[in-house]
């Protein structure tokens, strides 16, 4: 068996995947770059003209950009905080001896398998409706005024929905990591008289540092482009209150048909995502060596 032949075979097996992904990455990105330098409106075809960096200037100085950047950061930050701060205790709880653990685990993971449009609409209507929603009924039971979620706190409502979808992911990863923690180490610490709290701080938490980093990075990549939840609940409104970068680009492209400006926005989104990706790729790469 000639090794050269094997190598050739190996390369030709790899080629289709590499080729397709290369085209998938390069062609649309190059087109985005090209469109971003054009004055190009779908409402006014044939009027395309080169405008240099004009679209970037327009997109970046548009008040909608700053508002949506802020919304994006608030959304990503809040969902990360919620999923991790709730995910850690939840994972710790599920790591305990629990009767019927499999059923509990299924219940906790289930939201992750629900398609985004379903979660968003079920929350918006069945739970958060200001008159007939379950939350309104609960609020009245304890004597509070029901909140009109999508009018008074629209971004917070979206954050709650998205956090509910991603809490299972964080919990599941942290639980998987906890289960690989060496029990003897904890036992030894307990024998030495360590309290539960100090065992948690000095043994469990350091062990969770890497999985938490992974959760943060992966969730960030997906959360930067939350779209369907906003699309079916608020449509970015009221005003710009729930417009994130992804939704802003969508509305410029497919509602206002401003191809040039949407492309410039698209590149801004790519740059933001790449900053995060840079760190994630390094962490995963380090893991590959091990």
């Amino acid at each position, binding site marked *: 068996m000639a090794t050269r032949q094997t190598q050739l075979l*190996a*390369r030709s*097996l*790899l080629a*289709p*995947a*590499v080729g*397709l*992904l290369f085209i*998938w990455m390069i062609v649309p990105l190059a*087109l*985005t770059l090209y*469109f971003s330098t054009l004055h190009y409106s779908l409402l006014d075809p044939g009027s395309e003209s080169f405008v240099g960096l004009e679209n970037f200037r327009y997109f970046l100085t548009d008040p909608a950009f700053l508002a949506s950047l802020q919304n994006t950061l608030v959304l990503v930050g809040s969902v990360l905080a919620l999923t991790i701060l709730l995910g850690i205790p939840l994972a710790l*709880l*599920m790591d305990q*001896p*629990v009767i019927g653990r499999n059923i*509990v685990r*299924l219940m*906790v*993971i*289930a*939201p*992750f*398998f*629900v*398609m985004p*449009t*379903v979660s968003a609409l*079920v*929350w*918006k*209507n*069945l739970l958060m409706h200001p008159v*007939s929603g379950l939350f*309104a*009924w609960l609020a009245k039971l304890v004597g509070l005024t029901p909140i009109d979620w999508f009018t008074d706190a629209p971004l917070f409502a979206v954050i709650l929905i998205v956090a509910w979808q991603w*809490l299972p*992911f964080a919990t*599941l*990863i942290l639980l998987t990591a906890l289960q690989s923690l060496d029990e*003897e180490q*904890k*036992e030894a610490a307990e024998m030495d008289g360590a309290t539960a709290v100090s065992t948690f701080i000095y043994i469990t938490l350091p062990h969770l540092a*890497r999985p938490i980093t*992974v959760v943060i990075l992966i969730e960030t990549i997906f959360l930067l*482009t939350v*779209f*369907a939840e906003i*699309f079916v*609940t608020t449509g970015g409104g009221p005003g710009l209150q729930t417009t994130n970068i*992804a939704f802003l*680009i969508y509305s410029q492209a497919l509602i206002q048909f401003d191809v040039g400006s949407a492309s410039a926005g*698209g590149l801004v989104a790519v740059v*933001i*995502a*790449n900053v995060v*990706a840079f760190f994630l790729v390094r962490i*995963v790469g380090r893991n*590959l060596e091990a």
Partner: protein
Amino acid sequence: MARKSTTQRVVVSTIGAWFFGFLIFFPILWMVLASFKTELEAFAIPPSFLFFHWTTENYATVQERSDYLLHAMNSIIIAGGSTLIALLIAIPAAWSMAFSPTKRTKDILLWMLSTKMMPPVGVLVPIYLIYKSFGLLDSRIGLVFILCLGNLPIVIWMLFTYFKEIPRDILEAARMDGATIGRELVYVLTPMAIPGLASTMLLNLILAWNEAFWTLNLSTSNAAPLTVFIASYSSPEGLFWAKLSAASTLAIAPIIILGWFSQKQLVRGLTFGAVK
């Protein structure tokens, strides 16, 4: 589990875990219950939890009024088709990188991962325009293609980590016995790779089934999968909670069942092997 678990501790943690598990699961349960109510009961205040007039008429109406089966079929074709094609492209690639690694294998893998990090919205405009000019908007084939490419990096990565775990010694033994690459693939590798292949397929099916960026932007009616069909309930005139719930329950049921089988692989697939 090596530690002593006192009865008291088991009771406390069981109650706690069930309580929070139920709380997290509740929105789904509430939706399933609403799907068996009449529209009036679904909207009623105070809400009835179990003692309402159970009915299955919503499920019948959903099909009658909106051709649910067409959209379910679209979901099956789009999720299934994109998964199959992704596997066909990914299996040889992952096989080659796992068993004939070169100096560049690690770079190629990380590069593939980085294509997954590209936000879809960054290429929405060109993809939309390309699809428009090729008549691929609202076509199943167009969605199969885009979801296949979108998930290809995850598929390759998962397969790679599974193939890596197949002991090399077995391959060498087969080669010593004079097995050709083809026979090696069919008789040695395939049986050992099937569990990994199955979990990769499951996870990818779930991801494709629930994909809601490209499906919402590139399809409207004929090719619309369930994600888009459900989104059509968001318009104010379509506010039928019981029917929305029935359609939603049907849309998520198969995936929750698949998800149950794939929970272990979920962690591995979505963290690109960084957490196992």
